[in-house]
């Protein structure tokens, strides 16, 4: 996938996955890389930005002798996710046309 497109899609993806329930860095990373291939250096800045925007709240828990940071969605994060969803629904229409090939008679694959 194009790097720019990936960047744009990463934020709603992170919000949605965390919105599904509190999670921690590695788990989140695994779930994302199952969907799109990204490196850790791309994910960390997104988490940091969302945290700075107060979309995420974090708590650090000791786990097997080291620290594990959990991320959860805030009210603001939920709002942001809702905005992303609206945008993506619009995008869906575009995708539908593009994948059908754009022709009037194209009925999809």
């Amino acid at each position, binding site marked *: 996938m194009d790097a*720019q497109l990936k960047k744009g899609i990463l934020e709603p993806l992170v919000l949605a996955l965390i919105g599904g329930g509190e999670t921690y*860095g*590695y788990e989140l990373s695994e779930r994302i890389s199952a969907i799109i291939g990204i490196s*850790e250096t791309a994910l*960390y800045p*997104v988490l940091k930005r969302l945290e700075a925007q107060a979309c995420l709240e974090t708590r650090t828990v000791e786990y*097997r002798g*080291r620290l594990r*940071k959990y991320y959860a969605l805030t009210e603001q994060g939920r709002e942001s996710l809702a905005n992303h969803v609206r945008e993506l629904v619009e995008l869906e229409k575009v995708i539908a046309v593009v994948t059908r090939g754009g022709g009037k008679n194209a009925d999809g694959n």
Partner: protein
Amino acid sequence: MPMGINGFFAAAREGLANLGAEQVKEALSYYEEFAAEALEAGKTEAEVLERLGKVEDLIANLRSDASISRAETAPGPGTLTRAAHGGFRRLAGAAGRASIVSAAALPYLLAMALYVLAFVCLLGAFASVAAGILAFLDVSPAFPASKVGAAGIGIIGVSVFGLLAAGLRFSADALARLTLGLMRKGLGKGGPAVPAPKSRRRGRGKALAIAAGGAFILGLALVVFSGIGTRYFSIWDSIRPADIATRSGEWSLSAIDSIELSTLNSDIVVMESSDHPGTVRAIYEEPDWMRGSFAIGGGRFVFREVSNGRLPFLRLAAAHRGTTAIRLEVPVGWKPGRIEAASVGGSVDLGPLGGGK
């Protein structure tokens, strides 16, 4: 064999050694947590390293982030340059970000230009201090009021240049923040731009503006009430001074072989007259900031107009034409052996004694 995970973090730590500790710690602890979890979940070192990416990229990005944050908290030409160095390189590397590069380049260049101008104005403020001191020294002790006025010149200069420097710096800082904000947007980096420590800075800026305004008014008052302001204005606007002392004299032709006339900005006029055969007559209008003196000896008739020490930098101001004159009346047909006449700002008309200058 490429470096292991421990080597990766050792290299990262080394590369980031001189950065802000908190930011580095936070970022590295995230990556370390990730690596530990991944290994625990059964991934191989190679797999983990692949996910971590190149350590050079990690270092470069964190460094650049840190320099952007630093420039945001303490904007200035140095921090902005460092932030821009890494920031623009990363933006240029990111495909499709050309528009952001060009959008950020304009405020960046403007900010740097304003920083330079602010620096020039700061130099101007220092130069004004020097000018004030020189002006003070240039005034004769016989005119204490003018000494005060000379100090006023320095104060005006300092306040004007100081305020300009502060205003330009303030604008440059605002542009720097704009640049950094655009850069962050382009890089998709964390959060809102760090809000400037407004309350203190603004308070300081306001206090500075009030102080500079006050100093300007004080300086202006000193210049005006000491009288040097109006005198300068007379010279500049070619207004005939109110206080003119007329000096005149008559000298026998037999004692005069050569004539030397020099003025600051009084006009030099030589004319023929049949009223007083056998003598040269001179009439000089002397403003109260100059002194004109006649001297005769050894066949030389000499007139010199110099500053009497009331106006600082009179030689500079004198380049502007004045409204007073030294007039020399000579008998019809008479010529001295030699005549020399020069004025800094006034006109020279030698009439019958030469073609003028």
